């Protein structure tokens, strides 16, 4: 009850100020009158009584102030006063305010940008209901029970049938499918899924339904985006027929727009079309990924125990199955797949920038505090308590932090889309940023506000506390006193650590791009062709098809040579399999199996070292031949020449039986006819592995990558190349058209992203630190102007004075650099997984950065020092 009364009374005091004041005056006057009357009754005359009463009361204003301070509204008013006064102070020193606000803006804005990355990668939940109960299940294999990505379809069916702890399980597999039969053939990113897949995720289709177990194979579900893009949002699409891979498919459903599913979080684009999984019962063929929804009330441990029991039973029933156990991870974690590590690293780096900015602003405030000593003395004398002054100074800091934060958030708004654009494609980071739609949202805004508050505390408390201390002698303040010097040392250390990090990343990147690829990259155009299953259903047809295409392309003007390969270097695809060297002691080996056209090596510029290359004569009817790379020759035939030798390879054979597809690997003899030089394979940083190249006439593939060495700018020839291909088959989608330089850039994209960000942070921190050093050195110089004048009048030379000023700052800079080195040595190990061929404690990088930092610090201190000597001694002497 009394709270309302208090609120009402307080509001009245605020809004009816004059009336309340009048009443107070009246009441106090009455008191004085009554007191005077009382004294007159005791015998004083009117004058004496009045005066005595006044003296007893003391200062009327002081009493009124006491009365006013009782209500809550007085606190409000003092805060309001503080704010207005603070604004006035800031406006009075526009230069200082601008520098401080901008410095803070850089720190707060940068941190907000990185936080928005964190928000998109980690904090945004998956768009499925109760996504914390969704898990990805995977089998454990081998002696060390390591997890493998995929499970066998047969195993999956048994898991699904037998589990009680999982409410539902579903399996899926990534695929790419040609959408044909319409104006422009297109290759679509697809996922093949089991019935109940979407129910497991918790998604209901926007139109139609999802797959049921009695559905025929030729059905499809479209993503919302595909439905809008290719079918114009046709409301009657359900039930209509579309052409996929040359066959008719009935559309049974369309997904809602917020569903963005990727069959692999780091590599695959969002699936646009979904078709039923093709059953592959072979227990040793890992063909599907499995996800499941945990039943309500079931703990992860219970599920783990049950699933491992099921796996053990299955292993006994089917000895050829390789799964020894099962493990699972939260789907949210799988989707992030290590991207959070990068973001945390960047957050740590940008925190250094924020700290440097706060140290800079603290230094600015300290310098300003010394200049306001007089003002503080007056205020204390008039009666302000230390707490009151402290509060007012902190309000000023809050205003600074607020304006810095506002500018910082504006900077972040501009910078966040930029950062999104340089994110490395084909990484889980990129996928998460895309799926979570990276932008400045309320969470980031709130975080920015929090940061402003935090930085206000960081940079504001120390200067405010120092400013309210009793005044010190000006001599003590003239040196780069303990606090200021310490702050400068801190800034130097922080920026040094960042610079070292940036230096290491840059060296890594240079080393990476310097790697000898083993082939020539210039003017190389690549594209992906997947022959439609319906039109080219047999291996012979496939091989002939690619033959025709290559012939046409090789004949086209500006095309110097054309080749085809299954796994192109740097495209992150490879197929590894076993082979055997027969003999009295057979040797088992492993190599990459790669299928190529005869002109491939010539097109790529990979030299032949021994024997012969593959030729047109190596056709389906002649004995199997192959070419190996130098690594394979060196590893398995260290002392002899492998050319002419025979090995046993395993050939994939798929049989259609009544139970589904049966997969077998049949051993065949293959003669090695040549050795080629090593070329990088999977990724830029992986060393070359043994590789076996087979002619595609003998090992036909449905999908091959074409490589063209061209005489002109590759991108200008794309339309011509497409035309030639469409002359052979107008329905052929030509996809993933990239130059080899683009593939190379993609390899470097991840490191380049980190380098750009850490480099930006390091530059900002270094500039801030230099500005900080300059500011404090200038200030110190100004304080000693009088002293310098005296020295110069007494005959000191310029150099001596410069050295004098430098010397006082030197100890702090040395401390800063030493601390920075120590910090860098301790912290750069966090970068280790991102570095290539560079140690985290690489001495040359450390030495170079240290020199850079010394140069910057030296310059920043030198300029004010030299300016000090230019002062006219007469002026300096008069300066007080």
């Amino acid at each position: 009850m009394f709270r309302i009364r208090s609120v009402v009374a307080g509001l009245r005091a605020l809004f009816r100020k004059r009336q309340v004041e009048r009443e107070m005056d009246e009441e106090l006057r009455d008191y004085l009158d009554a007191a005077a009357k009382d004294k007159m009754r005791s015998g004083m005359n009117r004058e004496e009584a009045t005066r005595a009463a006044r003296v007893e009361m003391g200062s009327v204003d002081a009493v009124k102030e006491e009365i006013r301070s009782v209500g809550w509204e007085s606190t409000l008013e003092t805060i309001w006063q503080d704010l207005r006064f603070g604004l006035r102070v800031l406006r009075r020193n526009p230069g200082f305010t601008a520098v401080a606000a901008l410095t803070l803006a850089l720190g707060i804005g940068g941190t907000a940008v990185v936080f928005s990355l964190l928000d998109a990668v980690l904090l945004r939940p998956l768009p499925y209901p109760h996504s914390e109960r969704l898990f990805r299940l995977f089998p454990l294999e081998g002696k060390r029970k390591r997890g493998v990505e995929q499970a066998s379809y047969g195993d999956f069916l048994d898991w699904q049938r037998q589990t009680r702890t999982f409410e539902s399980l579903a399996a899926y597999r990534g695929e790419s499918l040609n959408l044909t039969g319409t104006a422009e053939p297109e290759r679509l990113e697809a996922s093949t899924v089991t019935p109940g897949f979407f129910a497991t995720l918790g998604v209901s289709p926007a139109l139609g339904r999802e797959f049921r177990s009695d559905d025929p194979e030729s059905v499809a579900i479209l993503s919302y985006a595909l439905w809008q893009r290719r079918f114009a949002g046709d409301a009657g699409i359900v039930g209509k027929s579309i052409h996929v891979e040359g066959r008719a498919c009935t559309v049974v459903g369309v997904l809602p727009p917020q569903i963005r599913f990727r069959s692999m979080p780091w590599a695959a684009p969002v699936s646009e079309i979904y078709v039923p999984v093709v059953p592959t019962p072979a227990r040793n063929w890992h063909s599907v990924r499995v996800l499941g929804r945990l039943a309500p009330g079931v703990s992860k441990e219970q599920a783990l125990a049950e699933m491992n029991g099921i796996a053990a039973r299955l292993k006994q029933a089917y000895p050829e199955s390789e799964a020894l156990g099962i493990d699972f991870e939260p789907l949210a974690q799988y989707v992030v797949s290590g991207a959070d590590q990068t973001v945390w690293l960047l957050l740590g780096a940008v925190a250094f920038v924020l700290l440097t900015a706060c140290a800079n602003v603290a230094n600015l405030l300290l310098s300003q505090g010394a200049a306001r000593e007089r003002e503080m003395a007056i205020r204390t004398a008039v009666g302000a308590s230390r707490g009151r002054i402290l509060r007012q100074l902190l309000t000023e800091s809050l205003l600074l932090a607020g304006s810095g934060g506002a500018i910082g958030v504006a900077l972040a708004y501009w910078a966040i889309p930029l950062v999104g654009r340089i994110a490395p494609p084909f990484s889980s980071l990129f996928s998460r940023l895309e799926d979570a739609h990276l932008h400045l949202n309320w969470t980031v805004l709130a975080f920015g506000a929090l940061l402003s508050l935090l930085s206000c505390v960081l940079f504001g408390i120390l200067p405010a506390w120092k400013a309210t201390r009793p005044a010190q002698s000006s001599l003590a303040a003239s040196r780069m006193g303990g606090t200021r010097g310490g702050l400068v040392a801190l800034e130097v250390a922080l920026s040094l650590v960042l610079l070292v990090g940036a230096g290491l990343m840059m060296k890594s990147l240079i080393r990476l791009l310097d790697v000898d690829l083993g082939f020539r990259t210039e003017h190389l155009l690549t594209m992906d062709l997947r022959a439609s299953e319906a039109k080219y259903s047999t291996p012979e047809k496939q091989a002939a098809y690619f033959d025709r295409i290559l012939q046409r392309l090789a004949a086209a003007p500006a095309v110097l040579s054309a080749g085809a390969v299954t796994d192109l270097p740097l495209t992150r695809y490879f197929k590894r399999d076993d082979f055997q060297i027969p003999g009295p002691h057979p040797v088992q080996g492993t190599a990459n199996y790669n299928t190529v056209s005869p002109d491939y090596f010539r097109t790529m510029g990979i030299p032949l070292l021994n024997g012969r290359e593959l030729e047109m004569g190596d056709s389906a009817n002649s004995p199997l031949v192959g070419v190996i790379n130098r690594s394979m020759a060196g590893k398995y035939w260290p002392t002899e020449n492998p050319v002419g030798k025979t090995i046993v390879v395993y050939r994939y054979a798929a049989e259609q039986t009544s139970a589904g597809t049966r997969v077998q690997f049949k051993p065949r003899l293959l003669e090695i006819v040549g050795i080629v030089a090593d070329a990088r394979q999977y990724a830029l940083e992986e060393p070359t592995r043994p590789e076996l190249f087979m002619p595609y006439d003998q090992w036909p593939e449905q999908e091959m990558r074409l490589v063209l060495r061209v005489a002109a700018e590759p991108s200008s020839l794309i339309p011509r190349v497409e035309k030639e291909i469409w002359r052979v088959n107008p329905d052929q989608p030509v996809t993933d058209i990239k130059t080899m330089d683009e593939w190379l850039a993609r390899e470097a994209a991840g490191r380049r992203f980190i380098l750009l960000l850490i480099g930006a942070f390091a530059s900002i921190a270094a500039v801030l630190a230099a500005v900080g050093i300059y500011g404090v050195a200038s200030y110190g110089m100004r304080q000693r102007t009088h002293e310098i004048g005296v020295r110069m009048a007494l005959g000191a030379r310029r150099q001596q004075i410069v050295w004098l000023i430098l010397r006082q700052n030197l100890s702090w800079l040395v401390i800063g650099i030493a601390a920075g080195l120590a910090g860098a040595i301790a912290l750069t190990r966090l970068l280790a997984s991102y570095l290539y061929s560079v140690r985290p404690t690489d001495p040359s990088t450390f030495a170079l950065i240290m020199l850079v930092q010394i140069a910057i610090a030296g310059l920043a201190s030198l300029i004010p020092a030299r300016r000090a000597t230019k002062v006219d001694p007469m002026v300096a002497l008069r300066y007080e």
Partner: protein
Amino acid sequence: MKSSELVQGTLDMLILKTLALEPLHGYGIALRIEQISKGVFRVNPGSLFPAFRRLERAGWIRPEWRPTENNRRAKFYQLTTLGRKQLKAETEEWARQLAAITRIMRAPAISDL
């Protein structure tokens, strides 16, 4: 005779007690406290008037403008029902504390022996 310092809470209680008998204006309350305490407590306006506002905000006293001679008006304070309850509670608490302090002070100390 010097006036002793009064703790804020105690002053509040004394004001409430003073008003328990009849409504008074500011000086009247100060005078009554001084008289009844036989001069031990002389409250200055710097403590008195903030106390009035405090008690008013808490709802324990209610201000009343009464007309006086000279066509003027004076601000009188009156104890409310809530205030009466508060006074009773504080009186009991004060008695309890006083008894406890008295007990402690009466107990023989080593230095007394």
